[in-house]
């Protein structure tokens, strides 16, 4: 499980570390990624927060696939403990939970994206590549959550920092298309912009989600657990 030389990626493959408390699920993801995805390599896995922190510190993988829901704190706890130490490791939340509260918590703790566990192996590999490349990855559901948080409902508090607390129209459009199940390329075609611009918008939405002071972010999430 912990071969330090594995983590080094000599030939440009992306090293991936799995954190999930269900061994069966880890085995499944590992099998899917090992099979048919040559440029993504699973270098280790952990079933608990402590194990994960120790192993990530040791292995320094490129990407960590992080379960949102685990005993003793879950993905957010792992992020809190390891992220300051290893800023170059990127985290992608992978969860069956779907509770808005949990998802927003991991995103705010620093995950670069969130995908549901029902995602196909190919899409997962694609998401791994994308976060590794510095982009954010939003599943339709996460896009919906974020759109909902930043929506201007009557009675919402005025933004403290408009720069962070509001989405631009373009960002909103991109999120809407994401929530409708569009891929980046399709979004680009739909809005007549380049894929790169789509990525920029998505990254900026992620940054706002993480940094915004908008008090609804926490309140909203606990109020609402629509699935």
């Amino acid at each position, binding site marked *: 499980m912990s071969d330090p030389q594995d983590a080094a990626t000599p030939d440009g493959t992306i090293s991936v570390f799995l954190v999930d408390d269900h061994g069966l699920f880890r085995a499944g993801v590992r099998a899917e990624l090992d099979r048919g995805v040559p440029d993504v390599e699973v270098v280790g896995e952990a079933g608990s927060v402590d194990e994960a922190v120790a192993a990530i510190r040791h292995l320094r993988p490129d990407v960590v696939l992080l379960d949102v829901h685990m005993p003793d704190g879950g993905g957010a706890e792992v992020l809190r403990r390891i992220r300051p130490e290893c800023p170059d490791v990127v985290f992608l939340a992978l969860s069956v939970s779907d509770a808005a509260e949990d998802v927003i918590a991991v995103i705010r703790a620093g995950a670069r994206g969130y995908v549901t566990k029902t995602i196909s192996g190919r899409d997962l590999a694609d998401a791994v590549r994308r976060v590794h490349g510095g982009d954010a990855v939003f599943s339709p*559901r996460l896009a919906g959550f974020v759109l909902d948080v930043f929506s201007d409902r009557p009675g919402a508090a005025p933004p403290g920092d408009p720069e962070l607390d509001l989405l631009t129209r373009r960002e909103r459009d991109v999120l809407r298309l994401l929530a409708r199940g569009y891929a980046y390329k399709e979004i680009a075609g739909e809005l007549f912009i380049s894929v790169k611009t789509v990525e920029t918008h998505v990254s900026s939405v992620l940054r706002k989600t993480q940094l915004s002071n908008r008090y609804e972010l926490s309140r909203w999430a606990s109020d609402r657990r629509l699935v």
Partner: protein
Amino acid sequence: MPRGRPACDHGVVSQPAATSGAPAVPARGPLERRRSGRLVAGVAGGVADHLGIDVIWVRAAFVVLAAINGAGVVGYGLLWVFVRQESADVQRVTTRRERQQAIGLAALGLGVGLVAAALGNSVIGWIVGPLGVAALGAAVVWREADEAQRRRWAAGARSGVTGAAGGGRTALIRVVSGALFVALGIAVFLIGNINLGQVQFGLLAVVATIVGVAVLTVPWWVRLARDLGEERRQRIVEAERSEIAAHLHDSVLQTLALIQRQAEEPREVLRLARGQERELRHWLYGPQGYGRGSSGGGVKAPALDEGLAEALTKAAAEVEDTYALTVSPVLVGADRPLDPDLRALVLAAREAMVNAAKHAGVDEISVFVEIEPDEVNVFVRDRGKGFDPDDVPADRHGVADSIKARMARHGGRVRLRSTLGEGTEVHLAMDLATDPATGTTTGDDDAPAPDAAREDEQEAQP
């Protein structure tokens, strides 16, 4: 007898709190006199073992009590008579120092008792009354409590006492004021006794003493109350646990059993698994789901059957079940109660999902619902075969009737986009009446009529 006072206080606080020294001893036997390592009859040692504290404190307590009309001596004697000796011979090592200490304490106790008797001072009697009652109460509670509670109290009392000694400000105030009350009580009594001998002074003394004792034992009472709360909480947790177990049994276990029986039919297994997942999810995170419990506050979503979000989710679930594929609805915005227009929208959306499921040849359909204050937008999208809308035979009524005509009747709009090989997206938009209180007048063909919906399916395009 001023000397007796602080000692008495100590006596009270540490009768319940005598447990203080106890470093959470695993399990304590019944009260038994020690056979070995004893000085007189092993009573003090036995009590110390039972309470889990150092024997020196018990001996000191007896000495202090001896000062109160010889109560310590009497108590010792009674315990000697009524408490049986421990059976097995447990060897204890007694250091010389401890022995000397014990002998010294015993002598001191006898002496104090004699002096108290000689003085015949009834001051002590006034204190002994309330103290005795308090001690008796504590003893009763102690006997009734189970092992775990005793241990908790012991730990709590220890922190309480050390808090008082260790300088928590409130603890200090509490101890000082308690001691003052006790002192006041005695002083009043003394004055009354010497000068006037009036009854009310006596009563005053008693009241002041009781107040003092009460103040001194505040943490202990607080802990008792908290214990009761804790017990209630645990009962609730227990009830909750059995509810979860019951739910898991009724749903998950049953489904797993079904899946095992139908293992040869992947389609059926998939359907069961999806249905179960949805059900569990709803139970956990749904609007009135299990996980929502304590979030409280704010305006809750409308009840299950009347909300737009719920209706759409249900429609998606039906399609998912019927056609054995994944329909993942994403909902944004505040839920709305269903009115005839919105019901039409739900049925149209359902029709769009059914079309995608039947004709697109995909195993996943995306549904995005955005509820804005003045408008609802629904997008149903697949990445399937796609079709040319102009190419649809005229005798197919699915899109024309079930979606377009229905939406038009209710003031909605439909936009259909399909590209061969890339998929189809149906966009349904419905303006919302600014006053949501209106409605429920035109229930025509759009009442949830499953039969009608099925018919539509038959004719669905393309």
